[in-house]
């Protein structure tokens, strides 16, 4: 090192610091690892796996990549598909939404994948949607989401709002006698749309506007002190209060820790979460969270033969006896088996043939029943409400008597209450207005 004095003055340092902070804010993580592109060979069918393996979403999505590899391996042991071996092509979109679109294009055009399984956040799905539509390929999307979408090229194997959020609110209303509601969420498209639907739904049930509090926080919010305090205050109005949480990802852990520390117990103010699964709970001490709720279509604790076999295979595949399973994994399990059936039915992996063959396909789910692909490209599911146990698992306290059919367009939102999606001939429309009898969007000639 030379003895030369630094060329930058202290005066300038301040400005540079702000510049540095801005760069950090804009840049976030862009560590995209480019995997070796798989060689195209004659005797294989390629399956794209589009899940973030780095960045903020890696915590949730890495597991889904692993489960897809397991399902593909199992299918190959059973003799593959149409006499060919399946081959998973893994790419890493690195929690970077525009990169999702680039990687999707690569999977379809370069790797020639017959179908892609991927995405977690709704922004990533919105980012790849035009790519799948333009190149006419198939995406299986495994996560509960806000609805209000029905693309011909996407099969939604996660829950629509009426398969998760609305039954959860109904449960609290009838069982918990809840009269006052806090809708807390992370500030992006899924919570905002879900809360818009829930607010309309609650008002339709006679809840006054004063009894609804809506709060949004940024991704990765870690200081929940005064938000938890204001929830406590909101809950001290003499009416039973509950929190409906659409808080996503990492921010949940400090949120629940703060709840525990400030002594908010589930018997006082229960929190029902739509994005907290076994995976998220693995990172926290769940004793203070006893009794807080989550609504999903699957829990690891579901006591069925299919689920036990699945968990056993999963632990053997990952060689880790502590790995948990969760709802989006089940969605991939269902979606993958549906796709296999659809391809067998069509006798080809050609997108148009498979898309038509998929509707009506029915496969076993892990909670002891069958899930079917409906004409709106969503699947039927049971809805389970579970309470958090001290061991980080959920204890089912309520289950819908039958399977729930997804409402892709919410009947509680003014703009979409007359819309339906139906991809069967002759309608073939993702947003058909039953009042006016016209197809408003997503028409496929």
């Amino acid at each position, binding site marked *: 090192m030379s003895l030369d004095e630094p060329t930058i003055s202290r005066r300038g340092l301040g400005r540079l610091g702000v510049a540095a902070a801005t760069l950090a804010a804009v840049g976030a993580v862009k560590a995209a690892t480019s995997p070796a592109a798989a060689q195209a060979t004659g005797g294989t069918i390629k399956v794209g796996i589009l899940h973030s393996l780095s960045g903020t979403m890696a*915590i949730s999505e890495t597991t889904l990549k692993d489960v897809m590899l397991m399902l593909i391996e199992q299918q190959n042991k059973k003799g593959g598909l149409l006499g060919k071996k399946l081959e998973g092509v893994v790419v890493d979109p690195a929690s970077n939404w525009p990169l999702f679109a680039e990687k999707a294009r690569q999977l379809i055009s370069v790797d020639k994948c017959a179908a892609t399984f991927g995405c977690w956040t709704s922004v990533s799905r919105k980012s790849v949607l035009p790519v799948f539509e333009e190149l006419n390929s198939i995406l299986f999307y495994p996560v509960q989401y806000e609805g209000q979408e029905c693309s011909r090229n996407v099969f939604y194997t996660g829950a629509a709002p009426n398969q998760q959020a609305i039954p959860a609110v109904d449960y609290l209303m009838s069982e918990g006698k809840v009269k006052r509601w806090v809708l807390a969420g992370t500030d992006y498209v899924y919570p905002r749309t879900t809360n818009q639907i829930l607010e309309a739904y609650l008002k339709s049930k006679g809840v006054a506007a004063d009894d609804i509090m809506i709060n949004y926080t940024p991704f990765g919010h870690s200081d929940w002190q005064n938000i938890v305090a204001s929830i406590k205050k909101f809950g001290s109005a003499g009416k039973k209060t509950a929190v409906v949480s659409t808080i996503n990802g990492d921010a949940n852990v*400090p949120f629940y820790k703060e709840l525990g520390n400030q002594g908010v117990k589930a018997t006082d103010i229960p929190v029902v979460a739509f994005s907290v699964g076994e995976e998220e709970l693995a990172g926290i001490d769940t004793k203070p969270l006893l009794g807080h709720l989550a609504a999903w279509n699957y829990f690891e604790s579901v006591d069925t033969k299919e689920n036990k076999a699945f968990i056993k295979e999963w632990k053997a595949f990952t060689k880790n006896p502590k790995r948990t399973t969760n709802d989006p994994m089940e969605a991939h399990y269902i979606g993958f088996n549906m796709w296999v059936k659809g391809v067998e039915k069509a006798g080809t992996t050609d997108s148009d043939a498979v898309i038509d063959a998929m509707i009506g396909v029915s496969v076993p789910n892990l909670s002891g029943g069958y899930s079917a692909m409906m004409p709106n490209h969503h699947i039927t599911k049971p809805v389970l409400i579970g309470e958090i146990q001290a061991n980080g698992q959920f204890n089912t306290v309520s289950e819908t008597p039958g399977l729930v059919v997804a409402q892709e367009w919410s009947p509680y939102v003014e703009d979409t209450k007359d819309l339906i999606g139906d991809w069967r001939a002759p309608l073939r429309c993702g947003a058909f207005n039953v009042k006016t009898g016209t197809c408003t969007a997503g028409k496929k000639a």
Partner: protein
Amino acid sequence: MHRIVAVLALIILMQGMSVCRADGIDDAYEELAASAGSISAAGFNSVRQGIEQLAVSGDPRAAVVIGALQDGLLFANDDHALFIQQADGSYVDARTGKPAPDVTDDDLKAVRINNAVRSAIEAALGSLQLFAPDAPTRLKAASAVFTSHDPAALPALTRALAKETNPEVKQRMEQAKAAAILYDPGASQPDRLVAVATLRARGDQDARSLLSTLAGQTGPVADAAATAVVAIDRVLQIWSVAQSVYYGVSLGSVLLLAAAGLAITFGVMGVINMAHGEMVMIGAYVTFVVQQLMHIYVPSLYQISLLIAVPMAFLVSGAVGVAVERSLIRWLYGRPLETLLATWGLSLVLQQVVRSLFGANNRDVDTPGWMSGATQLGGLTLTWNRMYIILFAFLVVAALMAALRYTSLGLRMRAVTQNRRMAAAMGIKTPWIDAMTFGLGSGVAGIAGVALSQIDNVSPNLGQGYIIDSFMVVVFGGVGNLWGTTLGALTLGIVNKFLEPIAGAVLGKIVVLILLILFVQRNPRGMFPLKGRAVES
């Protein structure tokens, strides 16, 4: 322990009862057993009724059975016989307490509980434990009855109050009684007015919540309750300002911890270190590793594992810092843009290394018992983990100031940063001092990681959330000035926490950032600019 106490309490209770209602007990057990495995609303309802019957039945096993139910250890077989699972996995008959060796897991279905049942359990155990011999248990029991405010507990409360000598417990019991009276349709008006006055004197959110259930009714009791709610609100309003200040100081202390290391590397040395957050992250992972190792090798000291993690984190992060300085940063002195890009790249490398070593999932760092929960100071809720972090942050900054002011290394550091050539001429090995200074800053960041592991996720992305805030604090406070950093962190914390309720968390952050940009435009050197020739050099 609680169960034994409860059993004793129950025996005392039984002495006051002349008839043992055996058929009531049978019914209660039948209710519990019949709904085993059920998750229907009717099933939970009958479990709740079973508990309520059991609590007043006078059965000496009641507290044990209810306790087992609370822990999820109560099971039933197809013949509606109930069993309790023991710690070793064996079963005993719930009604007799005798071992049941030939019962296996396969025959049994758990009696499930939900939140409504859990409330009933707490209320039942509460009223059973009002006569416990030790005061803390009685206090807890009285609080449980206060929360459940079930008029059925009134006779037990009255008897317990007559015997109670501990003033604190007595007061809590009176509040519990007042709450139950408000919910008792048969209570007389004078009793209800006294109850309102008792709750008004308690004056917290729980009391307010109970009183506001009377809103909408008419009559003198409702009027008194309405006035009481207004009075309580006025007091709570004042406390809430104090509470916001506490939250602000707490957020400020976290910012301070994160920024203290940067105040050395960026503030004193002038290195724009974008990998600073990753030093914090490494500190948090060191905490995780230390906890895991102590859990295996010295479980007796597990409670103080955080204290041992502090020096370890300092050493590990500090060593990484020295290595980074020697291998990367020393080639880039005087070239801030290159430093910025290189350290940013380094931050990505470090994140991916940690992700490969530990996995992408969050790691569970335990919070020791002495850092969990909260204490009440007037109307203030002070959470222990935040209290310790505030204290810790100030200790770290004080130690850092002392190190710069009073140690020989600190003297050399200041000399080198003020006038490098002169210091070199005096025989100070400036490259060595640079490495040490950078190591010190990184080590302090590592210590911050120990504290942050208690309130945030230990994941490879941990540092990213703090790098922006850290730069903000250092720039705002004045580059190269630890006092400025301290005051800057506290100011930003408090401003943030006062803005949050008004503007919301998202907008609040944006407003703070805009205010900061405007401030730096007017005062480019921050709140406390350094003076003298060194500044302009």
